[in-house]
């Protein structure tokens, strides 16, 4: 579904990603794990078009994404839930979801998508008239995911969904992401919480200082001593 | 001696000999333009003392007007010599600057907000001058009471050459102050503030005190510039010496030249004044407004295409050709 071949990217004179090759198959859930500053967020931003790749190829369902800007990539069916949630704090919950369906193809199915999102996250239905900024951290993350679903994507990019959440909330959130997955969405997730995320996904990549160091099935990867020591915290 | 210094010395010699060079019948006019350039360069330099540290003021017209009007009113009504009046004007301006700048700094009024607060201050001074028309002549302006003949005490001279040398000295003093500020310890500190307030504060720099110091210095120098201008023109007017128009003109000249270099304000001021005079001569009385129209258009173009100023951009280009090695090593 999504394939990156030898992608290099960065900011100014700084190169954050070197030679990244990565693929996500339809229906899969894939994780990218790695320490802070390893380039995980940059990777997500390259896929969603916020950062332009310098070299390499990005292909999504046989369309090349190279040179596409962020607002064009959404219409291909990729929704990016950015790091730090980035909801619109002064807009109501309902308006935030409305913005998720901004592009014309999503607007047509707006009512239907809305019901789906509200069924998945009932708390958003209860709070639809509230300002998004007044929600708790967990609720804001649900809103961010719900907003992404409103664009009727095929692939969802989740950047650090558990960041800044209380441990109880983290568990609930991963449950919810699992349910999103069961709805048939393909997911590419970046996480610090390696232990939890490896339970969720099929495959994982280990990113370190901008390069992919390891990849494999989630079950196998968690066995690796290296990963366990460095990131799982055992 | 480095080539830069030789050029500097040559320029200085030329400026010193200026009034005695043969200029035919144009002498008075050329001197007049040069005096204006020197005084406004000094004022531009005063602005850039704070402007380059991220304190973009759109209200320097307030300081200019305060300086010019204080000294003129003191002379006209109390016959107080501009030598003392000028000091009083600068002192008053510094106090006003303090009254505005302290809360600005204390309450973190920065960026757009700082620019607009200072703009309001400029308008307040302009409107006060107009409102107090019994004293100030309102929007008609006010002429300096003439002294009998040349008078050092009254700072009035018939010969433009006196003003020329006086403004040359003023300009050099301005450059010297700019240079000292640039070199002082404050420089590193203030640049850190320009980049990031909290970061600078966390390394123990007293943000408020530095901002105060720079603002007071800048305001005081601007007031002195206003005094000099008033003495030279011997006429003050609220629209040419206070308010948004003149404030923007000062900033324009500096940004056009480049506010991060010693000679930037001078280059920018010289160019804008020369351009204005040239257009005025070309169009004369035929197309009123045309000269200013072209001036405005050029300003927009310069700012779009030469964002770091004429002098700054030129220097960048030269540096790129002359010292590519040093530039490359500066890259992270």
């Amino acid at each position, binding site marked *: 579904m999504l394939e990156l071949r030898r992608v290099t990217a960065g900011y100014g004179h700084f190169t954050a990603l070197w030679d990244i090759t990565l693929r996500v198959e339809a229906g899969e859930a894939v994780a990218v794990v790695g320490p802070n500053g390893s380039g995980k967020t940059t990777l997500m931003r390259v896929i969603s078009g*916020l950062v332009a790749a310098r070299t390499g190829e990005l292909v999504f369902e046989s369309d090349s994404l190279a040179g596409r*800007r*962020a*607002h064009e990539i*959404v*219409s291909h069916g990729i929704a*990016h839930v*950015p790091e730090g949630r*980035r*909801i*619109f*704090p*002064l*807009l109501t919950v309902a*308006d935030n979801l*409305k*913005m*998720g369906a*901004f*592009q014309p193809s*999503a607007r047509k199915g707006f009512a239907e998508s809305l019901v789906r999102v509200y069924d998945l996250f009932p708390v958003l239905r209860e709070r639809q008239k509230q300002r998004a900024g007044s929600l708790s951290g967990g609720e804001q993350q649900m809103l961010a995911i719900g*907003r992404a679903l409103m664009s009727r994507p095929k692939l969802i990019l989740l950047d650090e969904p558990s960041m800044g959440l209380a441990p109880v909330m983290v568990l609930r959130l991963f449950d919810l992401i699992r349910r999103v997955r069961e709805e048939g969405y393909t997911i590419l997730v970046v996480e610090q919480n390696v232990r939890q995320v490896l339970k969720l996904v099929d495959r994982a990549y280990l990113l370190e200082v901008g390069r992919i160091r390891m990849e494999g099935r989630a079950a196998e990867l968690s066995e690796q001593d290296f990963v366990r020591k460095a990131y799982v915290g055992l | 001696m480095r080539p830069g210094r030789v050029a500097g010395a040559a320029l200085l010699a030329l400026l010193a000999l200026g009034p005695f060079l043969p200029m035919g019948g144009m002498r008075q006019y050329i001197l007049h333009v040069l005096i204006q350039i020197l005084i406004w360069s000094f004022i531009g330099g005063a602005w850039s003392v704070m402007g380059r540290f991220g304190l*973009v003021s*759109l209200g320097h017209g307030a300081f200019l007007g305060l300086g010019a009007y204080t000294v003129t009113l003191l002379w006209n009504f109390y016959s107080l010599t501009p030598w003392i009046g000028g000091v009083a004007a600068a002192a008053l301006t510094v106090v006003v600057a303090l009254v*505005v700048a302290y*809360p600005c700094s*204390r*309450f*973190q*009024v920065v*960026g*757009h*907000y700082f*620019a*607009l*607060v200072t*703009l*309001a*201050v400029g308008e*307040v001074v302009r*409107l006060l001058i*107009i*409102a107090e028309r019994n004293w100030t002549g309102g929007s008609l302006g006010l002429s300096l009471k003439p002294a009998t003949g040349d008078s050092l005490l009254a700072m009035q001279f018939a010969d433009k050459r006196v003003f020329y040398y006086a403004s040359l000295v003023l300009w050099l003093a301005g450059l010297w102050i700019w240079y000292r500020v640039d070199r002082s310890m404050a420089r590193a500190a203030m640049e850190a503030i320009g980049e990031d307030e909290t970061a600078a504060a966390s390394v123990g720099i007293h943000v408020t005190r530095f901002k105060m110091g720079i603002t007071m210095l800048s305001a005081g120098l601007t007031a002195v510039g206003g005094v000099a201008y008033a003495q030279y023109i011997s006429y003050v007017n609220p629209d040419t010496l206070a308010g*948004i*128009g003149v404030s*923007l003109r000062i900033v*324009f000249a500096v940004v056009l030249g480049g506010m991060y270099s010693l000679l930037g304000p001078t280059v920018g001021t010289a160019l804008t004044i020369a351009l204005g005079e040239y257009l005025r001569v070309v169009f004369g009385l035929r*197309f*009123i*407004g045309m*000269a*200013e*129209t072209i001036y*405005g*258009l050029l*300003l*927009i173009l310069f*700012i*779009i295409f030469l*964002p770091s100023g004429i002098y700054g951009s030129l220097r960048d280009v030269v540096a790129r050709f002359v010292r590519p090695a040093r530039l490359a090593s500066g890259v992270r």
Partner: protein
Amino acid sequence: MIDPIFLLEAAVNGVLLGGVLALLALGLNLIFGVVDIVWIAYVDLVMVCMYLVYFLVMVYGWPLWLAGALSVALGALLGLGVHLLIITPILGKAPVNQLLATGGLLFFLQSFATFLWTTDHKTVRLALPILEVGGMFLSFTRLIAFAISLVAMLGLWVFLRRTYIGTAIRAVSQDREAMALMGADPQRVYFVTSAVGGAMAGLAGALLIIQYSVHPFFGAAFGPLTFMICVLGGLGNMVGAFVASFVMSEIISIGGVVISTEMGYVIAFVVFIVMMFARPGGILARRG
């Protein structure tokens, strides 16, 4: 001592002035909130639109409403033009350069207007009656201008609340990048915003020319006031700008009657400066 009826009259006139000021402030604030640049020359665009209405009505004999509609269109066009020609090249540059580029436009428009139309004051006179209400004299023209401003602002409110692009405009002013991730082209949102902001300038021009005479330096008279209102209300904060318009117009109107016109403005500006210090949290909170 001033007769209370004059104070009341001044207060009512203040409200009427506030309506048109609010229109200006909302237009400018809309653009600031989205594009993050203060258009120093905003009120000079209004001045150009005022001239348009003047010429259409007084020279070519058009009906006022049609000239007004054309003024709105010209405003929108000017807004687009300013965005495309001046703002787009300097997006992301140093804030001082952004201020100055539109400041250059101010010089350009002022002097070009001087060149084309001289510094004479020009007026559109309407043969509308002065109403006498309980001893107060109120201009019917001003009442109409006020009513139209209110309707226009209501229209803006509905646009920003109810339409996709309007909501997107509010969203962009909160998080530009996130809105790109929703599939909104930032350039397109900027265009729409600049056109709407410009159209409001055009409408304000049509409403101002029937109350005040126009001259090339009209912008210098209303410009600073408009910026102050925006800052007082909170840059980008529409409701705040609306309220601030009436606060400022009341101060100017009543101050003008009690002391003098200039002192009315002086007090308004001083209030602005003091408020910047006294209520920085309230005013600055959103931009933190």
